[in-house]
């Protein structure tokens, strides 16, 4: 468990303290995939680097499994960092070392593993990230996705309990992003590793994260389970991110809504209710006619969801709303 207790960070620029992270309280549970989303400059990079003290905080305490890591001396900090893997947007592999040597590097630095242990572990990790055939290649000979898989294998070498991902998919194309995210999800599930992932893409959060914190101007403005934050965003920044990820044009949407007759409702289905043939039966029972103005059906991590914006005309609106609520559908009246 990672606990931030009034953690803050500011930089001294020309004698003035410029805040990068305002005092923040946050708890990341063991074994979850925790996303931090924000625009560039929002402070998410700082936040993730506080967890392994690449950036020391200027105030507050960071507790990891009830130990205050801000109290560590240099040797304790080095030992602690071995238990926290990290992957990067630009991979940061050593160009002078082969794939196998890159993966072995953190184990060699640790100085507590035998040659045979290192060799076996490297082999195992190469297999895990499906790069066995590339063991003796140099990073420059690999594609972006392959490089990031080497980065992941390297981060896992010393069997960490936490994996930090700094924009790990931002330099990759959509297809490669998907495969890297799937690998991260597999690792989280199989190894029970806590993953803290920062990104500027809500879509990445939707696919792999359990919970998410939204950052804006050095502050966490919204935090909660991804389904809650994603389907019912409250803060304007969060809404921007959700709309962006759905490629919804807000003015166009407003226009569509203004042209529609009757009441406008937004229905949110989650889990099982996504598959139920609800709308038809509700329309029959209540005598309401409806038209779908916009909608999306997708998955949040492994949970299916649907969100539909409808205009309803005629019939008994109350009966329709009751029936929907009874079927576990979240109903919002927009107009």
């Amino acid at each position, binding site marked *: 468990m990672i606990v931030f207790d009034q953690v803050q960070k500011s930089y001294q620029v020309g004698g003035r303290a410029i805040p990068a992270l305002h005092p923040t309280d946050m708890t990341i549970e063991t074994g979850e995939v925790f996303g931090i989303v924000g625009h560039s400059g929002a402070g998410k990079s700082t936040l993730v680097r506080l967890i392994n003290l690449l950036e020391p905080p200027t105030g507050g305490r960071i507790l990891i499994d009830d130990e205050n890591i801000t109290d560590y001396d240099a040797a304790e*900090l080095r030992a*602690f960092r*071995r238990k926290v893997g990290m992957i*990067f947007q630009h991979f940061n592999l050593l*160009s*002078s070392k082969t794939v196998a040597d890159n993966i072995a590097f953190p184990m060699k*630095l640790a100085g507590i593993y035998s040659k045979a242990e290192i060799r076996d572990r490297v082999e195992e990790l190469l297999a895990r990230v499906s790069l066995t055939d590339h063991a003796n290649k140099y990073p420059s000979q690999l594609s972006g996705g392959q490089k990031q898989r080497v980065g992941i294998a390297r981060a896992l070498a010393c069997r960490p309990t936490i994996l930090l991902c700094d924009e790990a998919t931002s330099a990759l194309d959509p297809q490669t992003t998907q495969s890297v995210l799937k690998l991260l999800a597999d690792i989280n599930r199989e190894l029970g590793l806590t993953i803290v992932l920062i990104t500027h893409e809500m879509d990445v959060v939707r696919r792999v994260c359990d919970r998410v914190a939204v950052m804006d101007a050095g502050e966490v403005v919204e935090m909660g389970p991804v389904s809650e934050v994603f389907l019912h965003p409250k803060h304007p920044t969060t809404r921007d991110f959700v709309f962006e990820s759905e490629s919804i044009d807000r003015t166009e949407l407003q226009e569509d809504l203004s042209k529609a007759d009757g009441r406008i409702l937004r229905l949110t289905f989650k889990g099982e209710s996504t598959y139920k043939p609800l709308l038809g039966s509700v329309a029959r029972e209540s005598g309401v006619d409806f038209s779908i103005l916009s909608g999306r059906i997708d998955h949040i991590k492994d949970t299916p969801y649907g969100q539909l914006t409808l205009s309803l005309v005629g019939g008994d609106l109350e009966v329709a709303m009751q029936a929907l609520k009874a079927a576990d559908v979240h109903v919002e009246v927009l107009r």
Partner: protein
Amino acid sequence: MEDLLSNVDWTEIGWASWDTLVMVGMSLLFSVVIGLPIGVLLFLFGKRQLLEQPVAYAVLSFVVNVLRSVPFIILLIVMIPFTVMLIGTSLGVAGAIPPLVAGGAPFFARLVETSLREVDRGIIEATQAMGASVKQIIFGALLPEALPGIIAGITVTAITLVSYAAMSGVIGGGGLGDLAIRFGYQRFQTDVMVITVALLVIFVQVLQMVGDRLVLYFSRK
């Protein structure tokens, strides 16, 4: 052909070439041994680097700049008392080596500093995140990553030392430069001058070629 090169004593040329080789080789060795750690320290003490030390950086950088800003021909003369103290003479091959190192080491140190700065900061950060100590970062990541640049720096330093070594002939340093000055210049033996210059050109060409090959071999980018 005989007439054209009538003044050329090939044995003399042979020994002079050997002397130049020894002077360049020895001074290059010491320049690298002394310049490499200074270059690493310059890098580490620099702004926003691992061991940021503004005062130490300023001092070290000043010393390096002073040695580099003194024209080598002056450095040769200024160094004489120190050279005598160090090895007993300021003449010959041995006497030329201390001033050559005084000129070569700071030059190489700057080249090392520059090539270390070229190493992607992300690699240093990643190595730090693995729990590496500063020593491990230097030897495990920085130096291997900067190796092609450092080898290129050694090549440039070696070539500079060839010309410095030739200059040391002015104060009785020995080698091809000495030959060129004593015979080619002072006795107007143009043929000796041409041969020494040709040999120096060949020497530099070979150094550059070997250096380039090595850089290519160690570059994985």
